[in-house]
């Protein structure tokens, strides 16, 4: 086993972890498994692509690579636009679909089914707008830097890992140290009771969507930067996201990130020892094992 497997696994795992935080938050606070979450990753990636393209055509200087990275200032600015856009998209879908179903007191499984319908709609819409041809943020090639101990990584990969770590820490601190975070945890425990003590449940719901969608957009942009952008990318990541959210324990942000890294590392190991074509089955194998051995996940809070 080469140490490089660990590096590849960590990078994929960081993307999965960021996405899984959104899944675990919607699951614990809105109480349903959102099959449309993967599409938020793809929409984030494509929104950044469109915004970066527009910025680049306004000012070509934004496209000159920053320092060692493969992209110019257009991409970080586009990423902020994409985060805002994806958050708006999530709020729109909630207003049109999930919110109405919640108001009608539909059962959880109807919400799950609606998310399944929303996923296919969103994905096909992307395919309609951008076609199914793969796209890239930059055409620049990067040389992987030796990090010592046989490890190599490109500057882009190291930046992604660093940003992912900062974001996880920020979300964790926000949930545990701020009033908004406390309100979110209260709604997750008991929405009725939270409403009775004066917590604005609607605001909490909005915050959950904005946070989940923002993190999904960033995960999607990383996936687009490090691999490629395709309308199917969200669908391909959906099972790893669910596996990570369940393995980490529903509702646990550090758990989702750690489990994301575990899923990413297992995928890298499978690519190394079994073959790249079986990568997609790794998440399923992990899911089956968790459900068999520890259905509450690694870090579940006592119910």
């Amino acid at each position, binding site marked *: 086993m080469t140490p490089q497997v660990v590096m590849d696994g960590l990078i994929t795992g960081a993307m999965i972890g960021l996405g899984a935080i959104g899944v675990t938050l919607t699951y614990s606070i809105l109480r349903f498994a959102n099959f449309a979450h993967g599409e938020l990753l793809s929409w984030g990636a494509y929104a950044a692509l469109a915004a970066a393209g527009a910025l680049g055509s306004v000012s070509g200087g934004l496209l000159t690579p920053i320092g060692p990275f493969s992209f110019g200032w257009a991409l970080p600015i586009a990423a902020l636009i994409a985060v805002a856009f994806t958050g708006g998209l999530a709020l729109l879908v909630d207003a049109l679909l999930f919110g109405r179903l919640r108001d009608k007191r*539909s059962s959880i*499984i109807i919400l799950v089914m609606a998310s399944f319908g929303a996923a296919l709609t969103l994905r096909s819409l992307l395919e309609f707008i951008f076609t199914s041809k793969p796209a890239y943020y930059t055409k620049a090639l990067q040389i992987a830097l030796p990090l010592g101990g046989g490890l190599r990584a490109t500057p882009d990969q190291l930046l992604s890992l660093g940003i992912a770590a900062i974001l996880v820490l920020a979300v964790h601190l926000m949930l545990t140290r701020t009033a908004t975070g406390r309100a979110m945890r209260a709604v997750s425990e008991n929405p009725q009771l939270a409403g009775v003590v004066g917590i604005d449940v609607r605001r909490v719901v909005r915050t959950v969507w904005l946070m989940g969608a923002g993190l999904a957009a960033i995960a999607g942009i990383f996936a687009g930067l490090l691999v490629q952008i395709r309308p199917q990318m969200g669908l391909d990541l959906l099972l790893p996201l669910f596996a990570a959210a369940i393995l980490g324990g529903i509702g646990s942000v550090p758990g989702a990130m750690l489990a994301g890294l575990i899923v990413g590392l297992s995928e890298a190991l499978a690519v190394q020892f079994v073959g790249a*074509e079986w990568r997609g089955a790794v998440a399923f194998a992990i*899911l089956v094992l968790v459900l068999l051995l520890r259905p509450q996940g690694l870090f579940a809070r006592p119910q």
Partner: protein
Amino acid sequence: MSVELIGYAAFFLTMALSFAIICLGLNLQWGQTGLFNVGVAGFVAIGAYVSALMTTPDDPNRFGGFDLPIPIGWLGGSLAAGIVSFLIGALTIRLRADYLAIATFGVAVTVQLAALNLEHVTGGPFGIGFIPRPFAELAGNSLLFSLANLGVLAITVTLLYLALERLVRSPWGRVLRAIREDETAARALGKNATRFRLQAFAIGGGVMGLAGAVQAHFIGFIAPDNYQPMLTFQVWAMLIVGGSGNNRGAILGAVLVWGIWAASAGAISALLPPEQQARAAALQIVMIGVALCAILLLRPRGILGEERMVSRHLGKLARRAAAEPAAPQTDSQGASRAENA
């Protein structure tokens, strides 16, 4: 011309009826029992591949080809899908409701991967061809051939419909709906909810496997691409449109949605230039997705809606009660109120 038209109508209906079988399976899982299966395509694929392996002639390039008779293949495909459903159900049904959904989604992804990569068993991306078709000796006369196949499908769907109707009206079916409506009450009456759900899920999966086998033998060729998440989505749209919880609704929805699908696909290929067709096909999926969400919001019952039924003996009871208005009447009202709750 008219012969062609009848031929096409027969082909269309045969396809629609094969979808109706999948819908009937899903109706047992979702409509009667409330189990959400997001991996329909996976279970259909298992049925199709197992039946194809059992019935095709020996092929030196891959495992098997056992040259068995078609009905044995149907049975085998159905059994295999039923067993996989049972295993997945046993793993997840005792847990949270949406874990089953996630796990079935995983089954669909994994079956798709296995079909693509296990080239020595499934033929890889090129799939399996030369699957024996019923009435192959009639293939010279395409009209007769289509009508004969339509007949096979019509008989299969009718038999399945009658069997399922009998099943859901039996005490067993009553327990399923009781668990779906109020699990605590059903368990208080001593019904093992997990076991009943598991049985319904396994039987429903077996019916989907049967549908996969039937479809494979009708078309004569299968490939992993036929079993994309799109298929799951179409079947769900069919059941929701027709009315979940109603076996006739499942069949009606299959014919209707397949009709809309085939008509819009035909319109796209006739009206649009070839380079735009892939994009238009994406829009077609958007349309179905929006329709599914709209029905969930506006008319969750579907066209026919769920039939209210308690027991097939209840009709007799009510008639007797009308003849002599006494105690049994309140009994039947109480029962139907329980059904409404």
